[in-house]
């Protein structure tokens, strides 16, 4: 009994010290100087621009990674081809790789002396590079959620649909997709959270130009380094609220996914 309680309180104390108290404190500190000050610092033109840029980047990278994720999961589970093991490893790589390395790769490819240096439009230190970096780091989430579900459902129903004369697209739309939709939804939530929250890779490729290539995470760092702590905390709180919304969505979607 004593062992059980001490284990429980040990774990809870660890979580509190490392996770809950610091996060709670940021909320507390933000509203230290009143709600008005905090509101003011998240509604400056720079903050608004950062918010829009962040949403724009997510609006491009999330749909692309979702389509890719489903196609890639179908390829991994339903097809046999040489190099499948390599495909698996490459898809997982962004999870295990430093975001700085991801950013550097894009800088070296599109920057001075890179293979794609002379494209007709700006990539580096502009939105396209930031989108590419975001797609890179959030690539694996949909794939990783959909693969186990596809494995689980097998091919019986798809084959039945084919026997009844359904084409490839109809089979996918009416048989496969309904079975994987919650896994896709879960993957989309994770992809979105990562897209909005990415810092390292975007920092490397953006040049961090105020009011131009500054996303919300870059704004947090910028404000902190300019000793505008209240501002940094306020933007952090907006990001933390997005994170909490993500967690809520995850807890809503998870049981549905498991019951399908």
């Amino acid at each position: 009994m004593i062992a059980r309680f001490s284990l429980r309180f040990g774990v809870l104390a660890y979580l509190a010290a490392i996770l809950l108290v610091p996060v709670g404190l940021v909320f507390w500190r933000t509203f230290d100087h009143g709600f008005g000050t905090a509101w003011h610092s998240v509604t400056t033109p720079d903050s608004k621009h950062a918010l829009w840029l962040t949403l724009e980047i997510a609006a491009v990278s999330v749909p692309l990674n979702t389509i890719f994720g489903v196609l890639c999961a179908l390829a991994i589970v339903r097809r046999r081809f040489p190099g499948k093991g390599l495909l698996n490893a490459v898809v997982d790589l962004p999870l295990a790789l430093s975001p700085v390395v991801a950013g550097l790769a894009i800088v070296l490819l599109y920057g001075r002396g890179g293979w794609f240096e002379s494209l007709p439009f700006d990539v580096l230190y502009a939105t396209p590079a930031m989108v590419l970096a975001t797609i890179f780091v959030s690539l694996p989430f949909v794939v990783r959620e959909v693969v186990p579900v596809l494995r689980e459902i097998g091919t019986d129903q798809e084959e039945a649909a084919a026997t009844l004369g359904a084409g490839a697209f109809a089979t996918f739309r009416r048989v496969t997709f309904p079975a994987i939709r919650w896994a896709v939804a879960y993957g989309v939530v994770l992809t979105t959270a990562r897209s909005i929250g990415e810092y390292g890779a975007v920092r490397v490729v953006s040049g961090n130009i105020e009011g131009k290539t500054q996303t919300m995470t870059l704004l947090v760092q910028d404000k902190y380094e300019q000793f505008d702590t209240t501002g940094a905390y306020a933007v952090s709180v907006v990001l933390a609220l997005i994170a909490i919304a993500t967690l809520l969505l995850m807890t809503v979607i998870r049981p549905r996914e498991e019951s399908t």
Partner: protein
Amino acid sequence: MAADAAAVRAPARTRAPRLGGVVGGGIVAGYLSLIVLVPLAAIAARAGNFENAVTNREAVSALELTLVLALLVALVNAVAGTATAWVLVRDDFRGKRLVNAVIDLPFALPTIVAGLTLLALYGPRGSSGINLAYTRAGVLLALLFVTLPFVVRAVQPVLLELDTDMEEAAASLGARPIAIFRRIVFPNLLPAILSGVALAFARAVGEFGAVVLISGNLPFKTEMASVYIFGRLQSQDAAGAASLSLVLLAISFAVLLLVGALRRWATRHDRPV
């Protein structure tokens, strides 16, 4: 007419038509090349003066610090993560569901916010009175924050699946709780613990956002490998940045291969012989 023809032909098929086919395969390969493979190849192509770039004192010191801290992170997570998973599965108390949901917070919270968050409590003018800014302990703390979910989320499902029959049998034969854990539960959890630990290790090796504010990036003291790479790039030393990146890339690949091997090992009894 066309529908009739399809109905006549269909039963002869042995495989369902798959969305994608050659076109889908082409899209997947092209997308992956454009986003991941070609950029990483650019790193390999641009890495220059490799030996000097990875053996100069600052690079070695950054790599050493990174690896030592990542190992520490792996160790702490192995214990704390397993304990947390245990409490979440086998214990019962008010607010357990909330605690369970909160575990994923480090995955959902942007890393820069994680760093700032820790500074609010453990930084200069921090509420705890302990100042860990610009110290290795501070960097360790930031790494523990961002890697917290890995082991918990790897062990939890295995522990949920684990039948308590064996444990009850052992208890009825007089085994003490410690012995039951060591000889029955732990061996079952080991593959999951190891793969969670491996992912936490990889994450710690590459972490940037969470440590950039709290570490102060002091060379030879708190400078991590990823921050060092960023610094090289800022000082126009692309070849040096690319060289050290190759080292990190190799570590990431090694960890992923290890996790894959662990997965196969853990499911070795499930597969038909």
